């Protein structure tokens, strides 16, 4: 069995009275369930002890002042103390208001010993909260708490000796303690001397646990990390939902569950992630952000919109191929519920809040992917330089554009890991986006704009200079660029035009005389990947007056890509 974790316990004596701001000089006590739960030092001098019945306590000390019991107040008031301890050592575990434990090894190493650590903790607690606390260090929380009562640091191998003279009542099992006492085992040292198998055989698991504690082998170790609140909910759909209506019904319940959990935790959610899994194992995820806290209805609404977008979606690329079998709602950003503050003069809050509401309405009409915000990224053609991000998604990563600006690096740098990134900070950022599109990669740190600039500033050989075209055709239009003899203009293998162009005809009724032109800007992209490999040459052509055109020659055919109008 592993030795118990060195543990620091911080104990504030008579916490309920400290929390109630009762002066230690007054004779006062807090009762719980008719018995004295805690009392001041003055009350103790007057004969009041913890556990005494109310009538007995009042008969011993008629001037005893009774303070109302309020566990919520105790817990609330203890929070600053925990925070103060946490500034010295992380990983505090609260055992009850007034008492907390924390693994001490790291802190002791940092400050140069357990003694220095306890001094630090006490100073910090005193300076931040004006509360005098006692500290103790021993192996395991049980011994540490007892050490804190004695306000001492037990040496690493002295836990058993420290516990030996303690009475068996401290084990926290009154029935067992009574039995042990009748058997003549009055101290923890007596219990510890018994052979473990015999204790287990005679007293059962409770006895074995008591035996372990008495030997200073506290199996319970304080968790080094406060586990985050589990707020996510999921539900399985059986049979799989292949229509929106079926999934929406489940989603509504799910949204209410999430909301209830949030309310229980006194939290409000400003960002949720909706995840769905299909029969074929496809995973879909989308983050929804909201300016104010999301209500149950708002969450349900967003889940419905999202399912609408997936199941009845207009984009076949993101459409599930099978019914949805699993739905999950994960609150990603929670804030303390404080109600929502609306604008004072009835303008419905800030501009951003109004915009968010209006866009939520549009998303309700058309689906969540209908509203986009644009982001300028690196690229050669005008269409490649824009990344459209659905409204509400974080505008931080670069989506599928994983290849580097030089065009010579294959995608998939994401496998480089954090170490690789830090070792080559100059060029691995662009591969940071995570080509797998997995959920957690999408929320980058706030440094994203800097990253974006860095990526933009990279040279993109073959990129077009000058102002960008104001109109970028989503689908390039077929065009014909012809020379003086009426033959189509071509580009030789050495990137020279076969003849100067004089006439441009674009599908859709454009027929103009070319008076100025420039090019080609040759582009040979993704040559390592036969599926996405593109080779084209771009030209800018301008008529005498009117908008100029951006053309591309690909596989011997001319296309109009954009208009400089």
């Amino acid at each position, binding site marked *: 069995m592993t030795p118990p974790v060195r543990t620091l316990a911080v104990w504030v004596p008579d916490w309920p009275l400290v929390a109630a701001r009762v002066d230690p000089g007054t004779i006062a006590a807090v009762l719980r369930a008719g018995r004295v739960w805690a009392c001041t030092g003055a009350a103790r001098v007057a004969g009041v002890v913890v556990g005494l019945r109310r009538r007995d306590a009042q008969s011993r000390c008629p001037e005893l002042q009774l303070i109302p019991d309020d566990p919520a107040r105790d817990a609330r008031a203890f929070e600053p103390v925990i925070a103060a301890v946490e500034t010295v050592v992380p990983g505090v575990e609260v055992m009850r208001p007034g008492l907390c434990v924390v693994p001490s090894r790291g802190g002791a190493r940092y400050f140069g010993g357990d003694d220095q650590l306890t001094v630090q903790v006490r100073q910090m607690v005193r300076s931040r909260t004006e509360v005098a606390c006692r500290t103790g260090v021993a192996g395991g929380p049980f011994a540490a708490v007892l050490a804190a009562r004695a306000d001492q640091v037990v040496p690493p191998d002295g836990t058993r000796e420290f516990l030996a003279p303690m009475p068996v009542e401290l084990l926290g099992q009154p029935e067992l303690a009574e039995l042990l006492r009748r058997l003549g085992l009055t101290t923890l040292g007596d219990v510890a001397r018994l052979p473990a198998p015999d204790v287990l055989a005679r007293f059962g698991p409770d006895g074995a646990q008591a035996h372990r504690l008495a030997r200073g082998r506290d199996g319970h170790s304080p968790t080094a990390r406060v586990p985050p609140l589990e707020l996510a909910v999921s539900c399985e759909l059986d049979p799989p939902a292949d229509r929106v209506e079926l999934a929406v019904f489940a989603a509504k319940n799910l949204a209410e569950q999430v909301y209830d959990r949030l309310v229980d935790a006194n939290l409000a959610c400003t960002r949720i992630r909706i995840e769905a899994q299909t029969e074929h194992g496809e995973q879909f995820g989308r983050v929804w952000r909201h300016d104010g806290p999301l209500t149950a209805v708002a969450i349900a609404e967003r889940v419905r919109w999202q399912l609408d977008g997936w199941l009845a979606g207009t984009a076949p690329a993101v459409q599930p191929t099978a019914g949805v079998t699993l739905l999950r709602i994960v609150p990603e950003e929670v804030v303390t519920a404080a109600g929502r503050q609306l604008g004072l003069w009835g303008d419905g809050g*800030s*501009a*951003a809040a*109004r*915009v968010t*509401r*209006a*866009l939520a*309405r*549009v998303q309700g*009409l*058309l689906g969540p992917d*209908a*509203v*986009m*915000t*644009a*982001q*300028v990224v690196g690229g050669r053609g*005008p269409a490649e*330089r*824009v990344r*459209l991000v659905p*409204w509400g998604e974080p*505008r931080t990563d670069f989506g599928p554009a994983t290849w580097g600006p030089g065009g010579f690096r294959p995608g998939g740098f994401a496998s480089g890991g954090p170490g690789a990134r830090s070792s080559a900070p100059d060029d691995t950022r662009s591969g940071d986006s995570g080509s797998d599109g997995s959920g957690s990669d999408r929320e980058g740190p706030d440094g994203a704009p800097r990253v974006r600039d860095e990526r933009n500033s990279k040279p993109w050989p073959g990129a*077009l*200079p*000058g*102002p*960008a*075209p*104001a*109109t*970028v*055709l*989503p689908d390039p239009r077929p065009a014909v660029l012809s020379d003086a003899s009426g033959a189509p203009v071509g580009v030789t293998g050495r990137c020279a*035009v076969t003849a*100067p162009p004089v006439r441009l005809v674009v599908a859709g009724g454009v027929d103009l005389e070319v008076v*100025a*032109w*420039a*090019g080609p800007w040759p582009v040979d992209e993704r040559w390592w990947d036969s599926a996405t490999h593109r080779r084209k040459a771009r030209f*800018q*052509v*301008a008529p*005498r*007056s*009117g*908008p*100029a055109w951006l053309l591309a020659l690909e596989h011997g055919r001319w296309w109009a890509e*954009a*208009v*400089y*109008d």
Partner: protein
Amino acid sequence: MAAASVLSPVPRIGTMVPGVERHRGPAGEQLLPVIPGLASLFPEGGLRRGSTVTVADSTSLLLALLSGASRSGAWCAVVGMASFGAVAASESGIALDRLALVAQPGAAWQSVTAALLDAFEMVAVCPSTRVSSTDARRLAARARERGSLLVPLGPWEGADLRLSVTRQHWNGLGDGHGYLRGHQAEIHAEGRGSFARPRQVQLWLAGEDLAGRPAGSTTAAPRSAAVVVREVVA
């Protein structure tokens, strides 16, 4: 006296609170700022909130119109323009994080526009279906009520102001060399009320450091663009 000294910092609040600067015209109505090159088109010094301004024939002109308001913190939306050049928008000074694009509203473009007019200072809309005069009036009324600017692309019945590009020219391009550098355009404006008198202005719509300036107003203009600035009052 004491009250005055307390109140004096109040105008600075506008700089602290993110939001649109409230420009006021002589008549007291609120104005949305425009870029300097377009200023001479607007006798009041800006676009009147709640009005309807159509833009024809040029996306660059729309960008120029949006950028003035966007630079001052306004939220803009563009409905029904799948071909909207976001890079050009960013170059013209439009803040892309305050720009919403609804590329394909389909038949619902009117409801979408109406919803956006509630919140956005400027909503540009390219109708995908024919606009009846009732619809046009309804949306214009919505814009007026909300104090937003409706910018339809193409014909629109009852618009307060109609902007169009009468002439445009790109320079920087030679016979097989150079690249498109500067975009000069002549803008024609006419409408109702104070805009009943048609106006014209020439300006740079795009180009190095020139975008948004009146043509010829800067010595840094490319040589080939020796066009004299003129404001024609027809």
